[in-house]
């Protein structure tokens, strides 16, 4: 047992000695680096070195948590936390932390990302690729972010496990004109699979096509979604699969288990596997993280659970325990059998959308919402991109969009962007019929 794991274990032992029923301690050493750029120049380079131990404990079904930043403070912190538990209120639905000794996949973190210091060159590579596509007057902005975390988890209920998690991601938005932009992302858990120029090229291509936009028109359209914007929708649906969100009616999936919620071509999974930015081998209870099929050929198969929500729903945990509530890690949509071009050819009069932001709901249970496409917005006629558009909004329903999926591409891209496509996903191009578009009057 290495030193940090020993110290984490000591926290658990000390808590048990104080009389707590169950306790989990998770120590994370995080090393994060970021370059932010705009107008083709680096604005700021950032480094965070963080260390924290998250401690969650239960005493007579009272659940309390704290964060410890210094191992010297352990005794005082634990005593304070137990005192808090003793005056706290019982949660009759608390089902305990996961019990057992599990087998875990081997961590495949890329140590090169731990030692990477100069990120500027990667950002420059992306900026140059965008400029090559969209012209010398292109203005690009974005971020390059790296993460390397060593995570040590010890639970009084059995799990003792260590993981390393690495990630590198680039997000670039290129402007070829004031109102003509494209956005590209490149996400990977390893440096060898990371190609910043790919993101720059895509942002540049879209920015070039997006030149001279005219205001779009209201109406009902068949829409081809790029992987980046579709990643935002995948994030919406996967988040709504969290059992906690179902319980508080923040989901269109309430009372729909076992029911058809999408056509047969739709299979949606949560899978934090090695390639993903969200790679991990265990959840916050120490349960092995795994692939879970949320929607199987159109049928809603499971919600995402921790041990407590699983007991409420009379099922098993899915390995999605977050600190308090279950959460998706990395969403995957199964590939279809069409190409991007074939999907576009299905569209007689419609749109090709590349990115969105500001997704907000009127009613999560019903699913009514709107979101604002940004960057390349294109009018498609008879399978061809005819005109760049601007100033439109998708005003529709989260369940209707799922039901109206009419085509899925073979190609998929690992996407993540800011809070808009979060959690990350493996996202295809997708054709959705009858999407409602509105605009300002």
């Amino acid at each position, binding site marked *: 047992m290495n030193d940090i794991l020993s110290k984490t274990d000591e926290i658990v032992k000390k808590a048990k000695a104080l009389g707590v029923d169950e306790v989990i301690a998770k120590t994370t050493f995080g090393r994060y680096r*970021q370059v932010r750029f*705009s*107008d083709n*120049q*680096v*604005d*700021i*380079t*950032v*480094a*965070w*070195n*963080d*260390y*924290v131990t998250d401690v969650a404990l239960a005493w007579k079904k*009272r*659940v*309390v*948590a*704290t964060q*410890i*930043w210094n191992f010297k403070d352990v005794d005082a912190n634990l005593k304070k936390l137990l005192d*808090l538990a003793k*005056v*706290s*209120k019982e*949660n009759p639905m608390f089902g305990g932390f996961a019990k057992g000794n599990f087998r875990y996949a081997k961590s495949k973190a890329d140590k090169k990302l731990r030692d990477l210091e*100069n990120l*500027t060159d990667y950002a420059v590579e992306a900026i140059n690729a965008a400029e090559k596509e969209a012209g010398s007057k292109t203005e690009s*902005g974005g*971020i390059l972010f790296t993460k390397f975390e060593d995570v040590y988890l010890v639970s009084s209920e059995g799990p003792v496990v260590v993981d390393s998690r690495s990630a590198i991601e680039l*997000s670039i*938005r290129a*402007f070829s004109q004031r109102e003509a932009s494209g*956005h590209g992302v490149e996400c990977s858990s390893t440096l060898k699979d990371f190609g910043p120029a790919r993101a720059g090229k895509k942002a540049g291509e879209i920015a070039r096509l997006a030149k001279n936009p005219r205001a779009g028109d209201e109406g009902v359209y068949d829409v081809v979604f790029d992987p980046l914007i579709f990643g935002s929708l995948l994030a919406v649906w996967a988040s709504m699969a969290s059992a*906690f969100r179902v*319980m*508080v*009616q*923040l989901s269109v999936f309430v009372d729909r288990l076992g029911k058809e919620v999408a056509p047969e071509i739709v299979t949606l999974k949560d899978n934090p596997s090695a390639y993903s930015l969200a790679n991990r081998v265990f959840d916050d209870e120490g349960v092995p993280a795994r692939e879970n099929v949320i929607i199987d050929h159109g049928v809603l198969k499971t919600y995402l659970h921790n041990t407590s929500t699983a007991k409420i729903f009379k099922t098993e945990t899915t390995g999605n325990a977050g600190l*308090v509530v279950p959460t998706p890690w990395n969403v995957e949509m199964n590939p279809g059998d069409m190409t991007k071009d074939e999907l576009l050819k299905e569209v007689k009069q419609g749109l090709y959308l590349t990115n969105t*932001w*500001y997704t*907000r*709901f*009127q*009613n*999560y*249970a019903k699913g*009514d*919402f709107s979101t*604002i496409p*940004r960057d390349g917005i294109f009018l498609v006629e008879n399978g061809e991109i005819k005109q760049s558009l601007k*100033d439109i*909004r998708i005003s529709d329903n989260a369940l209707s969009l799922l039901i109206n999926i009419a085509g899925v591409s073979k190609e998929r891209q690992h996407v993540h962007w*800011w809070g808009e496509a979060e959690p990350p996903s493996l996202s295809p191009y997708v054709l959705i019929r009858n999407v409602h578009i*509105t*605009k*300002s*009057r």
Partner: protein
Amino acid sequence: MEEDIVDYALEYAKGKEVEYAEVRAQRQVQERLMLRSGILEAYVSAVDSGFCVRIIADGGIGFTSTNKWTREEAKEIVNLAFRYAKLANRKEKIVFAKERGVETKWTVDQKEKMEDVSPEEKISEFVDIDKSLSSCGVNVVATMSSCTIDLISKYYVNSEGSRISSFIPKIGAYVFITVAENGKTEQASEQFGYSGGWEAFHKWKITEKMIHDAKVLKDVITKGKAIKPGIMDLICGPEVTGIASHESCGHPMEADRITGREMSQAGRSFIFKGGPYWIGTRIGSDIVTIVDDPTIEHSYGYYAYDDEGVKARRRYLYKKGIINEFLHNRETAAKLGTTSNASSRSVNYDREAIVRMANTFVLPGDATEEELIEDVRYGVYMKSFTEWNIDDKRFNQRYVGREAYLIENGALKHPVARPVIETTTPKFWTAVDAVSKNVEFDAATCGKGDPAQGIPVYTGGPCIRLREVYIK
């Protein structure tokens, strides 16, 4: 918080060839309560503490932070910030607008100290909200509530002689409810925020407000009618006025958007040099004055000095319908040839300070709410909103009413189910022909920054009347 380590880090940074250096330390005593349908899911109690270094060298910026309080660590992060600043290799060198060093201390008082209120009392107050909702005569099928308490101490020093200590307690609450009637659901959420002590909880009257919302949602389901789309008058209640002020005035007036630094994430602005809108351009009717003011005592967005050590003041953003003054930090101020107006804020020691709003609202007029309504032949009174959004240039926005009523011949009629205004920023503010006397505020958490920095703000204003806008 070990101020000697902060001072050491600054002295060490000043020993290098830097144009500017600052060290900002923050300690936050945190409490979090989270409840589902009146059941306490978790109670989190923690203390977070660390410091950051920001350096300008060769016209580039390096920023590093740590939560390890040692001199060795301080030295290491200064070295790294310095190296990163140099690596930027910028053609256009970054400079900060001039400011004089300030030595001061400021604090916000708590009438009822947060630490004097027991955890049991805090829990029980939130459990009681749920109990009251379950017996209010409305079928509230789910609730979720949370409370956040942060006792924030900061210590800020920079190479120009500033040395500022501060203490600000912040308390926030959030309640989300779902009402079901006749097989249909409607949802509402409310956010509350205050700088000060536990006295805030009593001022908020959360239970009263949530029961009102529950009854409104029931009425929307059982009595609400859709509005026939068309041109009509619209009265916005303070909550709707506030969100519009925040989204289509505060955000587009952030100078880091205007100068392009936020181009990739939060976006740019419809206001830009050489474009149709700039300082001096009309954007609304002459009775529209929107300010952003961090100096409102006990407001959620209160601060006396910003996170670059600049003294806070009221900013007149749209003044009598004219674009008047952008929100600046020292970097954007230098770029646009002016001085900072203290809009630089950071949520914690591990985030750079960026341009942010504080409390953004429309200044009051001289009409009463009744007078606004009396003079409407046909229209909608949108008192609160549910879904909303705006594009990243802050031009095309949409607000969907939650509590809304039809107005006919100067009188309020039946509830209107989810009326929508979807319009542009100049159309919205130009349509305003009357402003009421009373200003009300709502707490919000403004999102910006990468990594995200959700920052406490107020949005607000009086009732405003818009003439002849399209409602659907």
